């Protein structure tokens, strides 16, 4: 019998929602567990096997000195490493600290901030180790996750589109909410959700991060023309993918590299 590939799932600073997407594959979970060996997945099993692993899925951003060390070891132990979700690919909502003073943030939440270890910035996995693929979304889409796992275990590239939410919206035949006057991040946001927000009559809020080559300035200008205040534009760009370079550049022109 062929050797079953070994899968590991890791958590860094995050909400657990992206790894939960694996358990949300209710129809496929037992079949997946037949085809691959789940060697490390703390949320699902108390058994943990040492590496090397054929594929590691990494959720969460790096926000502590200990996490910075741990990701180096996981990279050494993993033949392929895929970052899953907005925290792992862009720093997540907790990257809002990158625009503020983390010590002041600490003092808002904790009475004795000195005892809490926290790095100044929340950073994506790719800033620390080479990443074989980044799956976007806050949260990721579980169908895309299934495609990524299948592809890497078959040694092929995953089929995941990099175009914008607008393309998905047109395909789905949804009425354009921007035309109806709502600010919508669809034109600059990476596809993957299936144009969910427009299908529920609200503007896209960018939870899949920037699409390939987005024209963020043009869209921001358009929002301003439609009456948005400068603060509103900054808030739109600074949510779950605030530290993704394309969004950061527009929301913080002086602070970006």
């Amino acid at each position, binding site marked *: 019998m062929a050797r079953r590939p070994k899968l590991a799932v890791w*958590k860094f*600073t*995050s*909400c*657990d*929602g*992206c*790894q*939960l*997407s694996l358990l*949300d594959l*209710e*129809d496929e*979970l*037992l079949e997946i*567990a037949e085809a691959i060996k*789940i060697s490390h997945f*703390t*949320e*699902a*099993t*108390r*058994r*943990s096997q040492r590496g090397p692993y054929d594929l590691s899925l990494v959720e969460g951003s790096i*926000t*502590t000195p200990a*996490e910075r060390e741990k990701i180096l070891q996981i990279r050494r132990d993993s033949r392929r490493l895929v970052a899953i979700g907005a925290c792992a690919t862009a720093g*997540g*909502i*907790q990257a*809002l*600290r990158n625009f*503020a003073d*983390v010590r*002041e*943030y*600490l003092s*808002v*939440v*904790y*009475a*004795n901030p000195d*005892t*809490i*270890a*926290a790095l100044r910035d929340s950073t994506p996995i790719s800033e620390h180790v080479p990443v074989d693929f980044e799956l976007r979304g806050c*949260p990721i889409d*579980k169908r895309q996750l299934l495609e990524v796992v299948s592809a890497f275990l078959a040694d092929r590239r995953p089929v995941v589109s990099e175009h914008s939410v607008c393309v998905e919206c047109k395909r789905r035949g949804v009425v354009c909410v921007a035309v109806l006057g709502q600010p919508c991040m669809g034109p600059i946001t990476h596809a993957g*959700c299936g144009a*969910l*927000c427009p*299908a*529920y*009559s*609200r503007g896209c*809020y960018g*939870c899949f991060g920037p699409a390939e080559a987005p024209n963020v300035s043009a869209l921001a200008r358009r929002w301003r023309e439609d009456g948005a205040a400068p603060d509103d534009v900054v*808030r739109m760009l600074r*949510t*779950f993918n605030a530290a993704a370079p394309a969004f950061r550049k527009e929301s913080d022109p002086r602070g970006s590299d």
Partner: protein
Amino acid sequence: MARTRTIRVDSLARVEGEGALTLEVRGDELVDARLEIFEPPRFFEALLRGRSYEEAPDITARICGICPVAYQMSAVHAVEDAFGVEVPPEIGGLRRLLYCGEWIESHALHVFLLHAPDFLEFDDAIAMAKKHGDVVRRGLRLKKIGNRILQVLGGREVHPINVRVGGFHRAPTRGEMATLEDDLAWAVDAARDTVEWAASLPFPELERDEELVALRPEREYPFCSGPIASDRGLSIESASFLDEFVEDQVAHSTALVARRRSGGTYLVGPMARFALNADHLSPGARAAAAAVGLSPDERNPFRSIVIRAVEILHACEEALGRVRSYEPPAVASAPVTPRESVGHACTEAPRGILYHRYRFAADGTIEEARIVPPTSQNQHAIERDLFAFASTRLDVPEDELRRGCEQTIRNYDPCISCATHFLDLRVNRS
């Protein structure tokens, strides 16, 4: 001098988030039991400042991937409390339906995939499925049906996109809602079987005496409303939460730990809800609880798995009723006018009451936010349960003791990312 030893689990599995457990033993005596939480903080209360009230439900949802609806519900109710928004009853009904979806999904995940393997002595549900395939498949299908409700009403399972202050962005059509009906009819039967199955599991003996705190609405099983009540006579509005409960920072945890201001400890979650609200369960859930001899006086934390099963049944019955009688509301959301104000709300997350408080500027900008999640409220009770459980079992083999302690913690379905905030069991023997 007595010999000391440490028994430890460095990385507690099958819980949400990162934590550890340490027992300190001196001679034959247990001297300390600690639940250590080292989930890195994300500073939600700090980063909410300067955001618009409209963003509170979507931002706070990201505190937890397993119970995002709880965060969205506490957030919208706190904002509506601040601005005096009147929400029509049909929208209130849709919110209860959304919450039913999250309870079914979250409880089924915990009962079948995270907790049951402890009782049946497996490392995980996948190993358990080899012997108990029908049970695991039933659990997965129940979980999927909870998630289907979240998809139809919320757009997706994790971090739903359809909730807004005042109501929803779009109410589902009658046709969309009808796609849930057959699944829910199956789920009611499957949930009833689950109560019977859960009650047949082997339960370690443990009797605890903590104050039980839950919402206690006048006429319904608690989700989004009702005063905060306890089995010892507490009855307060959410606005007084911080007068009665305080959070402390402790050295072994990045979660703040809550207690009664008077000094006592308490617990929240299914056992507290059931103890205070059993009379408000759906008829089927009440009958199923009675059939397995489960009473509101139940105080063995290991039997919380049976109470969760009863709550799954309640949520399935309530959801089926709401789906069958659904008429789309005239408007999907009530009008909202911001004002300078403070608002509070508690709602019942699957793991217990979740408190939000916001202070707003006149234009609705958040100036201050305070969030007290269920797991930080349960941390003291978990440690006290661990102490009570382990202190009479120090002579059992260490690996067995470790498993038992892990199971004791899982009785609470702890959500450590919520509390910040993960688990790691250490036993120090001296």
